[in-house]
């Protein structure tokens, strides 16, 4: 083997998965939706000539594409487009940070439980089981009723109800990988437990974690919408997709666009993340390599 093939070689480990992901139409479609959504929410608001709270009483209940407000206006004449985009910022941020927090928590709990096992691992996993027993939405509502709602608290609460699955996935994998030769071999050169967990085991369970994390974003966005829709989440006048739906429900027959637009935004974001998650799951599955 010549030097040139070898220097190029180290990349090859990542690229088959990446290639499979790029070939996955649904995943790419999901990614496209998400990129557009994120770009729109990040840049869009500065291009719209209205503030999110600017009341325009001459144009109340304006339908989309029928007046100065591109996507219509709400009962107070506030511009629907900018509110959608700013709500998107909130929802996506809550979704992302709740995912990050729940994934990190789940990974640490799963690693510790799987690596140490014994009564310690069993106790941690029974805690996970107990947390899984609560119906997430009711737990969410109970918690939200007790603390003052805000972006930070909602993120924390959503994270608190969605770390368990990651923990279970990681625990199961770590328990099976812990006895692998390379882990014992690493131990034989004298590395610490933390090193074994974070450097030897964690990289080998990254694939399912990435998949679970992606799907967790979708779930977090959905959960935030539930809670906000029910009035316990992000509080008006700060817009979120969920509380926009809440405002819209009494005008459902006269101004349906008020509900349809945030509903569509939630659907787009959640579908985008789910498509991407499914694609990642397929792409990162090494058994896919065997198939044509």
């Amino acid at each position, binding site marked *: 083997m010549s*030097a040139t093939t*070898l*220097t190029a*070689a*180290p990349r*090859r*480990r990542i690229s088959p998965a990446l290639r499979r992901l790029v070939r996955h139409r649904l995943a790419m479609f999901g990614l496209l939706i998400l990129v557009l959504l994120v770009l729109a929410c990040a840049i869009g608001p500065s291009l719209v000539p209205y503030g999110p709270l600017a009341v325009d009483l001459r144009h109340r209940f304006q339908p989309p594409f029928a007046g100065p407000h591109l996507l219509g206006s709400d009962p107070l004449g506030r511009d629907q487009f900018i509110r959608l985009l700013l709500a998107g910022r909130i929802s996506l941020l809550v979704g992302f940070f709740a995912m990050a927090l729940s994934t990190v928590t789940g990974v640490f709990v799963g690693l510790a439980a799987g690596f140490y096992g*014994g009564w310690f691992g069993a106790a941690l996993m029974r805690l996970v089981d107990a947390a899984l027993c609560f119906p997430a939405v009711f737990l969410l509502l109970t918690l939200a009723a007790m603390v003052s709602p805000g972006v930070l608290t909602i993120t924390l609460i959503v994270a608190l109800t969605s770390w368990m699955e990651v923990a279970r996935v990681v625990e199961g994998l770590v328990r099976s990988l*812990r006895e*692998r*030769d*390379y*882990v*014992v*071999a*690493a*131990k*034989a*050169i*004298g*590395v*610490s437990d933390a*090193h074994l967990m974070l*450097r*030897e085991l964690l*990289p*080998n369970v990254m694939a399912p974690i990435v998949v679970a994390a992606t799907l967790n974003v979708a779930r977090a966005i959905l959960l935030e919408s539930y809670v906000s829709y029910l009035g316990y989440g992000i509080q008006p006048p700060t817009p979120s997709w969920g509380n926009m739906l809440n405002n819209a429900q009494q005008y459902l027959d006269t101004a349906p666009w008020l509900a349809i637009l945030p509903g569509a935004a939630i659907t787009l974001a959640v579908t985008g993340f789910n498509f991407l998650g499914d694609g990642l799951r397929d792409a990162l599955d090494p058994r896919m390599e065997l198939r044509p």
Partner: protein
Amino acid sequence: MSALLTVTDLCVTFRDEGGEVPAVEGVSFALNPGETLAIVGESSSGKSVTALALMRLLGQSPGVNVSGRAMLGDVDLMTLPERKMAEIRGRDLAMIFQEPMTSLNPVHRVGNQIAEGLLVHERITRRAAMKHATALLAQVGIPEPAVRARAFPHQLSGGMRQRVMIAMALACRPRVLIADEPTTALDVTVQAQILDLIRTLQRDTGMSVLFITHNLGVVAEIADHVLVMYSGQVVEAAPTSELLRRPLMPYSRGLMGSVPLLEHVRHRGQARLIAIPGAIPDPRVRPPHCTFAPRCTHMRPDPCKRARPNLEPATAEHAVRCARWREIAV
């Protein structure tokens, strides 16, 4: 010469549903500086468990019980706190594993895996450790070490991976190297290269090697002393040349008879291997008498089925566990 590693009465038992299963029963030996001691025996004779017990790598699973003493210099490996043991692993006592295919972490470049040991045990920058890792790869005979250091394990062949494992084990210049069947998974030409490499490195660094194998050909190549193990016990211990010339225990003779030799083919026109009939007894139901008796061609109900024979000295350097060794000696 005082021994570097002295193991006294090492016992390992595993607990399962049926009760205590003895895997290693009272193994004792001494390993001198710069010397190679081979532990020979067929599968499930307790060789690897002995090695793992010395490295204290058995302890994680519940139900494992290790007793005995293992003095490395003046520290007892068996009673050392886990943190101190971690300091010793890799630095004073290193191990090469049997399976080069599975003993390297698939997600790390091999250079990093070699550098890891140095980073753990020595005050050294990552850059210096990487440089050292590249030098080690060159030392174990890997061409273009700087390029190969950046490769992932799956990009290397079995022989190369075993060399990487050896480089990993040697990174901190251990005083004792435990090699658990390091050549079993490799083909014969590569085997010879690896043995040669271990011998050369031993000459250069003066380390002691505990070599675990089931291959007597390898033993003849590399070992100064041999320990023959059968069903968890040492059944014969002698200097290599002595054992090969005058094996006393029927089991050792059986092992030698089952080594394929090209001369057999040349002299008799066909290769005939003399197999030892039967299989090693299940450790759960080891016979109370000599454990080899059921398979032994020299077995007489008295004394062989009366009691477990002791390991007794035949000469000053040669010990054997057989009740009839005097009668059957040739």
